[in-house]
């Protein structure tokens, strides 16, 4: 990258099933205040605010109107990208790379407990072709899981072991929504919600907000910080029409990863990356993400799980925080992944810290059957 971008600090609210004591603006204020404090900068120094929110889940048709202020954007240069929260990092980083800005706040949130999530998702389908099927985020994820399962003959225990791994990790993360470790037998016996997904194969729905402070290299030097660098990032989208896609593969993830790896000069991700925080909307989805990110050949993600390579003690621990299977503030989940990756590189992840992390990957995903994907490489 011609101009490097540094991450100076992050702020996260506790992720919960339902935040009854906080309004949306309270959550956003908490996250932005914590990020500024973590980065040891004040709001006055911020010259760019990038917001990412989902109007429909907020029940407001311009969600940034209320939340720009608690985010800290009052009388600041502010812009909103409307996608997965982590797209805010992409836009903020590009803004810093232009040389026009020096210090940027990125923020996203989601309060699923107050939103009719399934209805909002069904309304995302176009009224002519897909909407009549009545698919929501879970049935579409199941469709993808079903295609993947039949294509490669994935035994049921493999995705179940993904769930056990992530929930075990989540139990060590005080910020996670679900903190109870579960047994393989519990996954096996949980009811099928949409074949092949069982209840425990699916991410929960949670409330949470998180923020990051990004700086130009110039500013990071001026502030004499020891930052974490955004070494690379990439993003891409696939077609909307499910009928025209090969649902056993995450095509746009491969493209996004290629761009991020190119920027960060990564050739062998399994060897060169120390931890990955990925958006696993289901256990099967996590397996597919391994393949999209090039950790293994198509269909061989099951080997990584069998050999425990992505466990906390493995060569590439995936989702030390517990991932989405432990906490899923929906459209902000990807930005939480970037925050968690930052903590790992910084060495601040406390109970779920992996030792000696020099380079971490974060991944966010949006749209039906992971239409859009974004990948970030954070490094020392």
């Amino acid at each position, binding site marked *: 990258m011609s101009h490097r971008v540094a991450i100076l600090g992050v702020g996260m609210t506790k992720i919960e099933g339902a935040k009854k004591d906080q309004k949306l603006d309270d959550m956003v204020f908490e996250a932005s205040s914590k990020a500024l404090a973590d980065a040891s900068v004040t709001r006055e120094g911020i010259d760019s605010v990038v917001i990412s929110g989902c109007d429909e889940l907020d029940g407001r*048709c311009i969600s940034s109107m209320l939340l720009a202020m608690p985010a800290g954007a009052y009388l600041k240069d502010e812009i909103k990208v409307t996608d997965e929260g982590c797209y805010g990092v992409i836009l903020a980083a590009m803004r810093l790379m232009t040389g026009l800005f020096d210090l940027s706040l990125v923020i996203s949130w989601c309060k699923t407990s107050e939103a009719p999530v399934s209805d909002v998702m069904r309304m995302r389908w176009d009224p002519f072709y897909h909407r009549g099927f009545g698919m929501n985020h879970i049935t579409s994820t199941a469709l993808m899981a079903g295609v993947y399962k039949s294509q490669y003959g994935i035994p049921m225990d493999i995705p179940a072991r993904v769930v056990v791994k992530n929930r075990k990790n989540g139990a060590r993360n005080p910020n996670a929504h679900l903190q109870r470790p579960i047994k393989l037998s519990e996954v096996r016996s949980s009811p099928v919600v949409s074949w092949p997904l069982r209840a425990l194969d699916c991410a929960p729905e949670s409330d949470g907000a998180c923020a990051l402070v990004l700086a130009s290299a110039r500013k990071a030097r001026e502030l004499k910080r020891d930052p974490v660098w955004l070494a690379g990032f990439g993003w891409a989208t696939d077609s909307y029409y499910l009928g025209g896609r090969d649902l056993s593969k995450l095509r746009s993830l491969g493209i996004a990863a290629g761009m991020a790896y190119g920027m960060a000069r990564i050739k062998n991700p399994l060897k060169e990356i120390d931890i990955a925080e990925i958006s696993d909307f289901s256990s099967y989805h996590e397996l597919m993400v391994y393949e999209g990110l090039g950790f293994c050949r198509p269909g061989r993600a099951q080997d990584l799980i069998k050999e425990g390579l992505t466990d906390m003690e493995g060569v590439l621990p995936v989702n030390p925080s517990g991932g989405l299977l432990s906490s899923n503030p929906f459209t902000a989940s990807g930005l939480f992944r970037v925050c968690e990756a930052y903590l790992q590189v910084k060495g601040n992840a406390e109970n779920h810290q992996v030792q000696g992390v020099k380079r971490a990957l974060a991944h966010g995903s949006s749209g039906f059957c992971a239409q859009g994907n974004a990948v970030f490489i954070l490094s020392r």
Partner: protein
Amino acid sequence: MNEIDAVVYSMGPSEFLGVNEPDKWCVDAVGGRDKPFMRIHTGGATGLSAAQAGFHHVAAGLFDAVLVVGADKVRECKDSQQVLNTIWDPLYERQFGLTTITMAAFQAVRHMHLYGTKEEQMALVAVRSWGNALNNPVAHLKGHITVDDVMMSPYYCWPVKKYDMCPSSAGGAAIVIVSGKKAMKLSTRPAWIRGCGEVANTVFLGDQMGGRAQMDFADSDVLAMAATAAYRQAGIRNPVKEIQVAELYAPFTVCELSMVEALGFCRKGESGRLNEEGFFNMNGEIAVNPSGGTLCANAIAITALARVCDGALQVMGKAPPKMQVKNVRNAVCTGEGGSFQFHAVMVLSADYY
């Protein structure tokens, strides 16, 4: 399409269409498949914010050519004002039945109160815009109307009348932003993006008026802040002398009077009189909205992008013959979103330096 490296999708509130996240639906239609793609949404300012985001894609050094594109069909919903009521916070201001029309009435009343602006002066903005739109083949509303026509049109919320307001329109717009090197190869006369700015105010209308307010709702002071940043980048010191065309996102006649003051074309309170003197006419000091502007077409998601398109056409000398202003070196384009809360500015220039 093969030469386009990334796509920025310009889409405002999805509630007019009744399809959530319509950007995802339109990926294939705009050639976004397999490419970096993101949607920008800042309410009415969306198109200009999207253009700025496209500029950031290229200016960051990551891409050589970026497509900024969008479309909207505001009339597909039953009542756009019902939708727009939901931009306000449900706990404080939504119950007042605020709409963008009543909001504009607040600004008009403040402008009349502070500066003695007359309804007839606002009406004249509509007359000029409708007249200009006659030269714009893609404008929605156009025609020879008089101040009397505007004054006789029904009140929607005093002092805002039917002809003081923008329509609900359907339309699409797109721009291609390329790196300087590529531009030199492709065009002998491109429009250069020389300055950008975008500033957010508070959502609460009550905090924008009265004794404790930091600025007055009559004035678009936030636009002035954004313009200051954009002018500084563009090296513009005297906007009246250096800017020949302004394409403004002014959905109500009073907005335009307030905005030309904020953009430094005149002092606060002077715009009504100068407008009467023809200062903002096609052959005046600064041609404001030669396209007819937002008063003549408002497909919300791309209205501000259309401002950039029209500004660029003027700078490139490619506007339709009668719409083209002579000798345009600099054009300023704006977008405005929320409760007159987000203001975005872009300066386009015929000159690289």
